[in-house]
């Protein structure tokens, strides 16, 4: 197992290195002054120029420059935002938790509703139920997320007026940032409006989270269904029936743990698509997350923001997909069989 973990770590490092190489090459192609592209300093003084040239070894060869670039980035020096002149790292730590919150909430919705519905679709003998669930998931799978987000905010936000359509919380509430996750911060806050602030934050997250959850939800339903269909015909399910176990026990104890394995695998594969959908959703609902921040950086030609955003999002995706793979192996005894190289 340790060997396996080391190999996964190795994969993470190698992929990250390639990412840094790509970023480095891209930076040299940005249509601005190289110093501005690397650090975000717009009008550098002579002193700054000397220091930056020294730090990034701009007078040396490409490889030496890349090593200096890598050192700076790994030190956590992502430069300044050229529009706001704040440290990129500070801006990033401010926006990342909001994205995590949204993504986690959407994922939770997708799994909590998707798996039971998938099980229901696989167990139901009624053709109408089966086909309608499949039709709904196929529709959900093929709806473009920007259209869905706009339509939902038009219906529930504007026409019905049930839910707020932009931002993370009403501006009236002043919440101190402790963890960065607003739903937790509002609960931790000792303000007397803490509870109403929490409810307000909850209302704000519903529309973007539902919009973002549609794609993973449909995938989870379809994969759970197909996995359950095959597993319910397996011999060990028949054997469990022959033991006289109740159907619900069989589904909960024997079928679901086995069906969850392919679902987890597909969630890992979907991370990239999920992240790009999250960006679109953040822009639509003005969610103060990394996606909206990155998109505004792109509009403003803020090259350091673009670098920082891409770097953080890509590193996160690499890390999470490797984490999911490790979880997949840990949860799934069958894949460990391959690890031990037993037939």
């Amino acid at each position, binding site marked *: 197992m340790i060997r396996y973990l080391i190999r996964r770590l190795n994969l993470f490092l190698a992929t990250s290195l390639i990412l840094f190489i790509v970023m480095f090459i891209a930076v040299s192609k940005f249509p601005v002054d190289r110093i501005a592209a690397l650090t975000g300093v717009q009008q550098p003084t002579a002193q700054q120029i000397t220091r930056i040239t020294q730090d990034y070894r701009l007078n040396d060869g490409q490889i030496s420059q890349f090593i200096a670039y890598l050192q700076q980035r790994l030190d956590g020096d992502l430069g300044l935002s050229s529009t706001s002149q704040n440290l990129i790292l500070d801006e990033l730590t401010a926006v990342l938790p909001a994205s995590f919150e949204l993504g986690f909430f959407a994922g939770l919705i997708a799994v909590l509703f998707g798996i039971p519905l998938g099980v229901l679709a696989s167990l139901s003998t009624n053709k109408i139920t089966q086909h309608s669930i499949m039709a709904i998931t196929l529709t959900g799978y093929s709806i473009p997320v920007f259209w869905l987000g706009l339509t939902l905010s038009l219906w529930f936000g504007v026409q019905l007026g049930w839910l707020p359509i932009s931002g993370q919380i009403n501006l009236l509430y002043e919440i101190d940032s402790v963890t960065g996750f607003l739903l937790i911060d509002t609960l931790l806050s000792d303000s007397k409006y803490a509870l109403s602030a929490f409810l307000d934050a909850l209302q704000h997250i519903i529309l973007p989270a539902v919009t973002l959850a549609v794609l993973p939800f449909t995938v989870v339903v379809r994969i759970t269904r197909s996995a359950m269909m095959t597993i319910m015909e397996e011999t*060990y399910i028949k*054997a469990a*029936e*022959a033991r006289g176990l109740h159907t619900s026990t069989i589904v909960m104890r*024997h079928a679901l743990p086995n069906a969850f394995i392919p679902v987890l695998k597909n969630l890992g594969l979907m991370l990239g698509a999920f992240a790009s959908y999250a960006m679109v959703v953040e822009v639509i609902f003005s969610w103060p997350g990394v996606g909206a921040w990155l998109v505004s950086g792109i509009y403003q030609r803020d090259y350091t923001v673009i670098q920082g955003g891409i770097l953080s999002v890509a590193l996160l995706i690499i890390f999470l997909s490797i984490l999911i793979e490790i979880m997949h192996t840990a949860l*799934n005894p*069958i894949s460990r069989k391959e690890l031990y190289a037993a037939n």
Partner: protein
Amino acid sequence: MPLLDIRNLTIELDTPHGRVKALERVSLTLNPGEIHGLVGESGSGRTLLAKAILGIPGHNWTVQADRMMWDGQNLMEMSARQRRALMGCEMAMIFQDPMSSLDPAISVGAQLIEAMPENKTISWWKRAADKRINAQQWLHKVGIKNTQKVMSSYAWELSDGECQKVMIAIAVANKPRLLIADEPTNSMELRTQAQIFRLLSKLNQLQNVSILLISHELETLSQWCDRLSVMYSGQIMESGPTADVIAQPYHPYTKALLDNIPDYSNAEHHKTMMHTLPGSAPALQHLPIGCRLGPRCPQAQKHCVNQPSLCHQKDRYFACHFPYHNEPCHDEPLTKS
């Protein structure tokens, strides 16, 4: 009263090529405390019969029967819930492929404990520990020495023989009255085979468990069984007490099976051709008209295009118009218009 009495059980399967009769008018009687052997080649519907008795049909099955009496109750009239209640405690089954009959994602011990009966006399918080001890005892009884290790491992970490023993422990833990053993020794070495057969016969003698033993090896079955039923292509060909059937087979198929048993005592038989019936078992989509053995039968005559019905004579059943060593059954006229 027989423990299990099946009359004219027919199972039809819905396949992409239409509906086929995988099992046709099968009758089987099983007395309490006997070991009943069911012999037939693969594809003859033995597993189907076993699953139909137990009540775990596949999704494309249509099961019909005149009656399926279990200890005086008709299984056909029971609801799925009632039959599920019978499974495990009254009837249990050992499956053909032990490795795939155990859930790969849960340890063997957890599945074993799941099957243990609940001891209602002790307080509920002690029951889990009690089940665990019980499970270990059963594992020990079926001949696994390293119980702790086996219980904590997964099915694919064990050998086929160990898995089969675990399955047997699961099946017998609730002390069923009928144990259906579907090829329990398939793909196992001889020593384990003998162990498992000894175990089954011990269960039969000590706990009075009736056993329906399914196999394709007539030789092994004849050693352990009280009664034999021979199946071919989804129909019962012959049935009767083992000694009688072996000594004097009525049906040409039984005779062919007996001839297939190699005889090592005779030196002359060295390197001679083995006796086999010509051809191979028909596919379910292309069954012959009349007697299903007809085209391969050495005794076949013109009359064999009519399907023979199972005929009862002195504790023996056979389905043949022209049986060996016996008069034809006169239940039906030989000349049918």
